[in-house]
């Protein structure tokens, strides 16, 4: 069975690029463009891993992490995307329960390696 990835990112081109890559790697990918939609999809599909941008419309990435960890009480690994200057937000994300973070600009190859590593650790 394919592992499920929820990708929450408001940049459509980047989302498509990552979706293409994730599907090529054999993951079932669900893409959402804002935080509210992310919460709904995460609750519905119960993904194996969540990739989320910190800054998103309606609900931020931090709210998504809090929703997964505190409301849904799930230990789904979460990788956060940030940009330079968001170090404080990244620290908050970690304190809320994020598993890893990647600073933009990032390499999709590196992202895939991190996802694989996180999923291996999770399935151990």
């Amino acid at each position: 069975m394919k592992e499920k990835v929820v990708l929450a990112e408001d940049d459509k081109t980047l989302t498509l690029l990552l979706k293409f890559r994730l599907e090529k790697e054999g993951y079932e990918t669900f893409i959402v463009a804002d935080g509210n939609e992310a919460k709904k999809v995460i609750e519905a599909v119960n993904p194996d891993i969540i990739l989320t941008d910190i800054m998103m419309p309606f609900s931020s990435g931090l709210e998504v992490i809090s929703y997964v960890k505190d409301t849904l009480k799930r230990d789904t690994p979460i990788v956060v995307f940030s940009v330079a200057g968001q170090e404080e937000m990244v620290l908050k994300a970690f304190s809320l329960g994020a598993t890893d973070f990647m600073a933009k600009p990032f390499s999709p190859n590196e992202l895939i390696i991190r996802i694989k590593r996180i999923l291996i650790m999770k399935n151990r």
Partner: protein
Amino acid sequence: MMQAFVENSSLTFWNYFHSFSLLIKVIWIIILIEIILIICSVIYLNLIRKRFQQKNQKEKLLIEKYQEILINYIYLTADENEEKIKIKKQLVKAIKNNLDRKVIQELILKLHYELSGELATFLEDLYHDLGLVKYSLKKLNSSLWYIKIKGIREVTQMKVKNVYTETLKLINHENKLLRSEAQLTMVKLYQFEGLKFLDHLEFPISEWQQIQLIEEIQYIRNQEIPDLTNWIHSKNDTVICFILKLVHLFNQIQLKDELIKLVMHPSEKVRRTTISVLGYFRILEAKTILKQIFKNSTPETQHYIMNALSDLADKKDVPFFEKHINHPDFEINQIAIKTLKDLKPFLLTVNLNK
């Protein structure tokens, strides 16, 4: 009968209009013209709105079309070479159209901004291969400064290397933003070689611009620092201050003789920056000259000198600091006391008791 009524009523209106005084007639005519103008403006604005909506709609469709094409192209494997050539041909053809080109260019630039590693390099190569560099260079020749900035940012982001002369021309542009952008581009694209723009700089470099330039310089991997001596003698005081910051950053202590000469520079800002650097490098040879200029310097510069001398002090300097422990300037006497405390704690107690 209807025609007769219309003719009759228009005749009546005409007779009625003629019965007015000249002023009323003029007012009526102005009102009429304004009504016609308002109607024309509404129609025109509606047309423009419609055109914009159509353009936006078309742009949206093009974005969707080209982002799919681009992503497909990016992930084509080596054995799908035919497909690669086909897509590339399609893109080359598309960029001849202004709107299509704008969309493709923006998509590549936006994606490049988000990505690093081999994909970023791939997008840079694609930008070159599609001939989009030509259009970025065209922007550099625009008469509008903000278009020039757009062009300069594009060439910098896509690492277009053959823009040295074009960028150099812009470092003395009357627009401050454009000037700053051109100077940053020189460093981003040509690294230490790009610092040659300092030879031609006619405007001062602001503190903020110096910080931005230093930030870029710190990213330079090549550690072969150029000879900074020439710029130390620049006619532009801000260039000297900027170079002094680089001397400090890269520990160019071999320039100490030049630094000591700068203590006598006519610009107070240059003198102060030099004094700080001398103190940082602990250049003992500078002590004599610093003591000499202390008396005739401004209070602010005296603080700099005291701080530098405090860094350079040894037991031979005790008399100098003793002379200033009762200086009316609080900061100066504090530095003097603190330095004496470090040099000779016992002696300080005796002198203070006196």
